Structures are given as structure tokens and as C-alpha cells.
């Protein structure tokens, strides 16, 4: 293909995303430097970095930062490992594979708010939830999920919803694996693990890094699950950065501070992304 054509084919997506990025971003940066509370329309003016200072000096800021990272990290590990295991299990044909496949992908079809409601009220509730009923039936004390393990509960909910995403990507990628190569390896006496590490995992390197990168973006901004179940509590145990921004944006209606929080979130996301790219990004262009 000639280089000019390559540029022309790439241009629309790059230009559109550039506009999509610059307009809201520059407005956000502008808002973050002015006094701007929806409920006080008369208060205006440039205030420098005060909004940033307010957001940064919040005692909840560092716990929220840690929670955000723990949340993203745990969900990434769980979904990639589970996703790999499950997509390998369903790689070979078996009776009812189509049905099993749809069942496995289906959690992804549920809206986050609804999934949070189902988990909170119907599964994890220590009084009338299903887990409590199971624990009681087995003679154990039901776990008070949202009180004692708030962040873990949210990690479970999000992992349940996003493992199907990993399955979907891995499942499709496995289809393109060279079957002859695998058969040859089997004939040479290579066991399952040896095949997995020498053939399958290298083949899936790019899809894995893509799953990690995309999920990272979504999980840095988890909101509905927290909002519906714990409201960030107890204390700030399940508060993440997005939730802090939400409080400023939708409860204090302080657009200035919320925008400053948004800028912090972008910086954090970029730091995480740089680390991830160092670790896995080179597989992208392989």
C-alpha cells in the first residue's frame, strides 16, 4: 500500500478523536482553574490551582487512589485468568457449546446498575440474600459482604461482569490458532501445559494486552456498582477517584473542583497506562 493511502485511511479516526479529545479536555482544564459552582452562578473568576489543591488535600484522596488501583488491578488479574481458563475450556467443540457460550457471555449484557442491585439485594444481603441462605443451610454464619468486605464485593461484581469480555476476545482469537502446529506438538508428546506456555500463550499475547488496556480504562471509572451498593463506605473503604469526583460534581455541583478531579483522573490513567505499556505494550505491534 502506498504511504499516502495509509495516511488517508488513518486520518478520519485520528482527526475525529483529536477533536473529541481536545474540546472537552480544554473545557475541563479551563473549568478547573475557575470558581464555578452551579448553585452559585454569581461567583466567578480565575482562582489558579485552588480547585486542585482542594481535591488533592481531601483526606479521602489517597485512600481513594489506592482503592482505585486495587480495584483495577484485582479485576484485571481475575478476569484475564478466568477468561483464559474458560475460553480454553470451550475451545473444542462439545454438545451444547453454543448455549454454554451465550451463557458465559451473558453477564456482559446486564446493565451495571442492575447487576449491582441483583448482587446487593438478592445475592449478598446477609438477611434475605441467597448466599446467606446457603451459609445458613451449611450451618455457617452468613458473611456481611458489603459491611466487612466492601471493596472485595465490588471486585466480585465487576469481575463477574467483565470476565465475559475477556472470554469473548480470547475465544475469537483462539479460533485463529494454528491447529496443525498444535497437532504436531501433541504428536511430539508435548503436554497440555507445555503447549499452553509455548503455543497458546504467545498466540494470545496481543489479545491479552488489549483486554488489559481496555479494561483498565473502564475500571478506573467504575461508578454504578459503588453508587448502588455501598455509596463508597463504610468510611472510604470502597470510594474510588470517580466517586470522589461524583460527590463534587453531582452533590456539591462544584464544576471547578470536579474538573480538577477529572484532570487528576486523566493523569492517573496515563501513569497506569505507561506502566502497562512498558510491561505488555510491546506485544501490540508484534
Amino acid at each position, binding site marked *: 500500500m502506498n504511504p499516502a493511502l495509509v495516511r488517508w485511511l488513518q486520518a478520519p479516526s485520528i482527526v475525529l478523536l483529536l477533536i473529541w479529545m481536545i474540546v472537552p479536555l480544554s473545557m475541563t482544564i479551563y473549568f478547573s482553574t475557575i470558581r464555578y459552582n452551579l448553585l452559585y452562578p454569581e461567583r466567578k473568576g480565575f482562582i489558579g490551582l485552588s480547585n486542585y489543591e482542594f481535591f488533592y488535600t481531601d483526606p479521602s484522596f489517597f485512600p481513594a487512589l489506592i482503592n482505585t488501583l486495587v480495584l483495577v488491578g484485582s479485576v484485571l488479574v481475575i478476569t484475564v485468568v478466568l477468561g483464559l481458563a474458560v475460553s480454553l475450556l470451550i475451545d473444542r467443540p462439545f454438545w451444547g457449546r453454543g448455549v454454554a457460550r451465550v451463557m458465559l457471555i451473558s453477564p456482559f449484557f446486564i446493565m451495571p446498575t442492575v447487576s449491582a442491585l441483583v448482587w446487593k439485594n438478592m445475592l449478598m444481603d446477609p438477611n434475605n440474600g441467597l448466599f446467606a441462605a446457603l451459609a445458613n443451610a451449611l450451618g455457617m454464619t452468613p458473611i456481611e459482604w458489603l*459491611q466487612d468486605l466492601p471493596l472485595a464485593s465490588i471486585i466480585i461484581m465487576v469481575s463477574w461482569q467483565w470476565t465475559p469480555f475477556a472470554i469473548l476476545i480470547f475465544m475469537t482469537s483462539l479460533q485463529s490458532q494454528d491447529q496443525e502446529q498444535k497437532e504436531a506438538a501433541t504428536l511430539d508428546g508435548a503436554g497440555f501445559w507445555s503447549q499452553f506456555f509455548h503455543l497458546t500463550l504467545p498466540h494470545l499475547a496481543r489479545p491479552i494486552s488489549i483486554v488489559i488496556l481496555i479494561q483498565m480504562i473502564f475500571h478506573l471509572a467504575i461508578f454504578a456498582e459503588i453508587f448502588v451498593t455501598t455509596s463508597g463506605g*463504610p468510611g*472510604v473503604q470502597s470510594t474510588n477517584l470517580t466517586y470522589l469526583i461524583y460527590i463534587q460534581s*453531582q452533590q456539591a*455541583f462544584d464544576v471547578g473542583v470536579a474538573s480538577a478531579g477529572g484532570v487528576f483522573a486523566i493523569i492517573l490513567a496515563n501513569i497506569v497506562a505507561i506502566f502497562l505499556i512498558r510491561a505488555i505494550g510491546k506485544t501490540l505491534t508484534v
Partner: protein
Amino acid sequence: MKSLMNTALGLSLVVAGATAASAGELTIATVNNGHMIEMQKLTPKFEEANPGITVNWVTLDEGTLRSRVTTDITTKGGQFDIMTIGMYEAPIWGSRGWLEPLDFGADYDVDDILPAMRGGLSHEGNLYAAPFYGESSMIMYRKDLMDAAGMEMPDNPSWGHVADAAAAMTDKDAGQYGICLRGKPGWGDNMAFLTTMANSFGAQWFNEDWTPALDSPAWNHAVNFYVDLLNNYGPPGSSANSFNEILALMNEGKCGMWIDATIAASFLTNENMAYAQAPQAVTTRGANWLWAWSLAVPSGTKQKEDAMKFMEWATSKDYIELVAETNGWGAVPTGTRQSTYDNPNFQAAAAFADAELKAILSAQPENSTQNPSPYVGVQFAAIPEFQAIGTAVGQQMTAALAGDISVEEALANAQEAADREMKKAGYY
């Protein structure tokens, strides 16, 4: 498949040209509470009586509704002709000139609206929102369990007595808990309840100079009492419970007592329910909250006349009678008008009527704390900063309830969070 996609895109572009509501079309934002559902069902009657007006409903969950209408009204978005708002927003928005002041005809009998409700929805003597249904808080308890525990519940109990009764009614092995209270963080969730409790212990949100007063001994006393009470006699997982979760527990017979919105009485299915006023510690002032789900018209709406017509209809005596005719007097929206409580049919149909009226009449939003305070509101302070403060403080209270930190630490953190917001807003 492809052609379907093409059609879809084409359709969306065609529709893009269409603009917002045409004349005679009212867009009303509301929540999904039972009385609002009934209002939607009865709206065709209004439309019949007022040809040319059609009504579109936008129903949202409470948090989303609050963000949507606040964003809309502050940016003059003009998406809604009538908004469902609470007692928190009405005075703030009214003072900013964002709401149309209400002035209804003599038929409407505005003096029939309970004075506490009128006061809470007004700013400087102007009524800015019409109450659709109102509520206070009270004790709802199982008479049978109370009797079985050998206890009695006076009409105006003290917190000490409530704790004794809760102790007597608790049988954890049988899954029976003496008392259920809100624990989920949020200014409208656990803090609505905890504020009334703290009020009765002589606490308040802000001192006269607007500095937060969460570090006071009264708050400490109240929150310690709350945490001990729920940990000893409450159900597991209280820190995630709010109105609906506890309603479920009550209807499953798990709780002996519940202190919450009076509207809950109409949802409780057990036939042994009895009612008493919210408990007091050192004062009854501010011990029970006051709230009204109300309708308001944003100023500058193009459909002011039609909107007013609808509001007048939906909050009138005639509307209450219409609901009574359709569904019986037990199902009418309560807490707004004296005439409802005077109606013998209503008294006969609603066992909770007396307790509810007494609670509402005793609530005074302008005078809700033992010591003088600068703010209006019983279970909240009607200032724009309160939502964010209430939520941050609520999170700390939940942490104390869950036993993660001590009550003292929780209150110190809460004080700091409130102080930060108040400083940012320039109160001092």
C-alpha cells in the same frame, strides 16, 4: 443485518431535526414512588378536563433525578416544565429566583396545607413548591412482639426506653432483631435519620458562625448510642441498609421496631403494627424529620400557565378525593392537608393517621435544634453545601457502625470534611 443498520442510522438522523416539546405538552420529572405512580395513572382525567394539554412523564431514580433537575435549572436547560423536588431544594432554589412563586386561587385553599409543610417549602413568605405528599418520622413497631417481650411503648418514648425495648425484643438465634435503622451512607439515607437522633441529643450541624459542630459532646453521645444500639440489637449488615432494605426486613418479620419515614406505615403488611413518636433524649426538638415530595415550576418556562394548572390539580383537595374514589381512603397521598386528617373516612382507613399528623405538626424546620442554629431544615441544613457534607459525614458514620474506626475518630473526620466544604464555600 446491514440494511437494518443503515435504516437505523438514517432514522436517527431524521429524528435529529425534531426539537423539544411543542405547545401544550408538559414534561414532568418525578420519582417512582407509589403516590407518583398513581398520579400518572390518573393524569388522563386531567387531560380530559383540560383539552390541549398532554403530559409526558420522565421517571428517574432519586439520585439521578436530583442531578438532572439541578443541572437543568441551574443552566436554564428548560427540559422540564414541572420538577419533583424536596424540602431541601425548594428554599434554596426559591431564594435564587429559579422557581416560579406559587399563587393559587381561593378554591385551592392554601391555608389548608399544613403550616410546617408550607414553611419548609417557602422562602421569605413565598411558596415555591406545592407539596404532593409529605412525611415525618416516627417509631413503627410490632405490638405483638412488644407485648411478648413484656414491654410497653409510650406515645413519646425516650431513647433509653427504646434501647430497653430493643434489648427485650431481640432474639438473635431466632433471627429476631429489636430495632432496624438506616446505615447506608448518604445525606438522605443514614444522615437523615442520624440528624434527627442527634437533634434530640441536643446536637446540631452548624454553630451560629457556620462552623461545623460535629465535634460536640452531643454528637458523640448520640452516635455512640446509635452504634451500640444497632450493634447489639440490630440486624447483620446494617451499614448497607436504607429505607427499602429495612422495609423488606420489617415485612419479613425480622425487626421489632423501625424509626423511619411515616409513609412506611402504608407499606407495612403485618397486622400488628403500632406507632409512636420518634424518641427523645434531652429534647423533642428536631427529633422527627420533615420532608415533602413537591412539585415546582422552573422560572422562565414557556408553559407556565399549563404547568400551574397541572400542579394545582395534582396537589388539590379534589385530587385527594379522586384517589379516594378510585383506590379508597387508605391510598390517598398524606401529610399535606389538614382536611385529609379531618376526614372521618381517612381516619378510619389509616391506623397511622394520628401519629403521622402529630409528628408532622411537631416538626419545625426553622427551629429544629435545642441551641440556636443558623440554618433551616430538620434532618438537613438547607444550604447548597449540605449534600456533599452529608454524604462525606455519612460515610464516616457507617465506618463507625461497621466497627472500622471509633466514634470519636469518625466524628473528627466528619468535622474535618465539613470544615473543608464550608471553607471552600467561603462561609468563614
